[in-house]
């Protein structure tokens, strides 16, 4: 499909684009575009979120030779859709001309070999949400390094408070923290994939949290933003949460939490690594059977990089961090009442976007790899270690790649 001739833009006649996404009220955003572009009308259709049913729907549509023009696909899922030849290479329609409008790290995550396979829509730079009142109890401030974090956690345990939770069942958090330390697990090298999950950055991160869990510094009973987590947070049993920028909206769901939380920079690793990391983030991708890829690309660029598009996406859909290099959105330039008047977006998350690991790239079986990793992490509760889990996961991921017929080899750091 990406070797077939480029489809030329429609000249003159009216074009209707269909856009599948799980963002709420997306049509309101499209309507702003529609009013200005009578010849390219965009019709938003709501689908269930990602692995909750949306991707299944897209895969079925692609298999049947149909599907929408545009679809919301998470950054980490882009390669999975490339594997079924489901995405249009937008570089062939001039996407690279817009590269300098986007955050470099995110643009890197939609670029593979010479192509561009999605237009970044939002992301989740990470920071540390914390409760000054609870940290005060043990005379601590927001921890600046992970060592500080561990020391504060030990003090908090004496007051029966956990500093945070460690999600065993969802390794995306561990992955984000290892990425911060400098890990870069999979890469394309010529005709083959290379994997390296046993580098120092990953193993040191695993060792650090092995120790933290063994010493009961973090709880593994639940993950952030799960029902039990909200109950624990409301009961003042959780002092901090290292999470993505989109966590702010979720945090507002903690009952009685207003005014109690603040945001600080993510704790850092002693040597090497980056100031922050990222969890989540999605793109607007053009699906393989679109008849109007050029128009779809133009709409996506308008939506993600124009001020009115970004503001409308934040207001109507509550998207995560805008991928635009220069504009974070009007709403986010203002202080927040929930965070006690702190102007945390400009103060914490904006600088965080400049301190992310730019080398990370996703791979075609990300979801399966995360499940493999989670299977290993769950053994932690019965005596296993995260270090062993990572090493074993690397072997299983290699097998899973080969079962798909993809070539992969292990490289040493």
């Amino acid at each position, binding site marked *: 499909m990406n070797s077939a001739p480029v489809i030329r833009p429609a000249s003159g006649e009216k074009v209707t684009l269909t856009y599948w996404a799980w963002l709420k009220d997306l049509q309101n955003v499209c309507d702003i575009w529609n009013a200005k572009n009578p010849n390219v009308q965009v019709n938003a259709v709501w689908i269930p979120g990602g692995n909750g049913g949306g991707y299944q729907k897209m895969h079925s549509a692609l298999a049947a030779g149909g599907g929408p023009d545009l679809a919301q696909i998470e950054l980490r899922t882009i390669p999975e859709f490339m594997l079924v030849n489901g995405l249009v290479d937008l570089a062939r329609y001039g996407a690279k001309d817009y590269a300098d409008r986007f955050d470099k790290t995110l643009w890197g995550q939609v670029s593979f070999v010479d192509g561009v396979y999605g237009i970044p829509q939002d992301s989740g730079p990470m920071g540390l949400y914390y409760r000054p009142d609870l940290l005060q109890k043990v005379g601590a401030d927001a921890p600046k390094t992970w060592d500080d974090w561990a020391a504060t956690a030990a003090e908090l345990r004496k007051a029966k408070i956990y500093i945070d939770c460690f999600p065993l069942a969802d390794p995306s958090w561990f992955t984000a923290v290892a990425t911060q330390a400098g890990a870069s697990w999979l890469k394309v090298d010529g005709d083959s994939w290379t994997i390296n999950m046993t580098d120092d950055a990953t193993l040191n991160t695993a060792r650090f949290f092995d120790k933290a869990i063994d010493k009961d510094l973090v709880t593994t009973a639940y993950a952030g933003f799960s029902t039990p987590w909200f109950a624990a947070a409301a*009961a003042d049993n959780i002092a901090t949460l290292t999470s993505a920028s989109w966590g702010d909206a979720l945090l507002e769901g903690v009952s009685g939490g207003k005014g109690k939380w603040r945001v600080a920079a993510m704790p850092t690793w002693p040597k090497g690594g980056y100031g922050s990391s990222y969890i989540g983030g999605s793109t607007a991708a053009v699906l393989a059977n679109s008849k109007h890829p050029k128009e779809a690309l133009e709409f996506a660029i308008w939506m993600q990089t124009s001020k009115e598009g970004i503001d409308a996406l934040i207001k109507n859909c509550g998207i995560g961090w805008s991928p635009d290099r220069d504009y974070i959105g009007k709403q986010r330039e203002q202080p927040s009442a929930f965070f006690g008047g702190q102007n945390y977006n400009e103060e914490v998350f904006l600088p965080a976007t400049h301190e992310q690991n730019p080398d990370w790239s996703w791979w075609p079986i990300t979801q399966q790899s995360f499940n493999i990793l*989670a299977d290993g992490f769950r053994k932690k509760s019965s005596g296993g270690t995260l270090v062993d889990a990572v090493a074993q996961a690397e072997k299983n991921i290699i097998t899973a790649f080969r079962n798909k017929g993809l070539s992969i080899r292990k490289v040493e750091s």
Partner: protein
Amino acid sequence: MTSTVSATRTRTPSSSLRGKSQHRKRMWAPWALLGPFLLLFILTFALPIIIAIGESFTKVTRHGIFGEKGVTTEFAWFSNYAQALANGNFIASIGRMLLFGVVQVTVMIAACTVLALLLESASARWPGFFRAAYFLPYGIPGVIATILWSFLYVPGLSPLIDIAGMFRIQLDFLGAGTVLWSIANIVTWTYTGYNMLIIVAQLKAIPTDVYEAAKVDGAGPWRVARSIQLPLIRPALVLTTVFSIIGTLQLFAEPQVLQSVAPAIDSEYTPNLSAYTTAFAYNDYNVAAAQAVLIAAVAFILSFTFLRLTNRSSK
């Protein structure tokens, strides 16, 4: 539709030597009546099964970094089955369901039998009310039931855990060792009333003269239950047990929903969850089809074995 039409057409000439029009009408009627059923049966049942079996013997191989250098589809013999069986999580999920079945089905069948006998005993008060009350949970969809129960399982929300905590008892409903039985509890709560109703129906079918004869012979309620009711509801018990065995292997909604609050439930906790994950998260429909065929085979073997055992012991 095509198959029904062609079936009618091929049959008519051979058997329409005399009374042509009348005969044709008679031949046509059963097919017309069966048509809607057959159409749905073939399209939504027979065809998917055939396609799934076909898929389970197919393998798709991609070349290059993203399959850009070509995709080959070939007949793979049993390699998908080998891959499914080599997956430790899938085998573990079947083992888990066997353990679950042995405990949960036994408890549930015993409970529903006792309830049915109590409700049908002569001294039962308001049997109609209690029958409806016990049956009520079945009317609540599994997903909703799981959400309801999860509020009793989650620490910080559950009054049960709080009360136990007052007596210094640590309850953990969602731990790696306990969550399976928390699911069993939800399943038992949902289906006991339903199975009870099947047994009650069978109990009601016992002729009253059998009871009268027993009374004349001086049998008390215990004796009636043991020697008359239990042997006569045997077919209902066998039926409910077989349904429960099949239902156990197909467990899906409860663990899927509970997953969000119980980190111990992995993406391949039950055989059906495993097949679902393989198909829709890993996009590997071929191995998923092989898993589905294997699950069906295990359900068939278990049900058949159970029927064999009960038939033998009754002889």
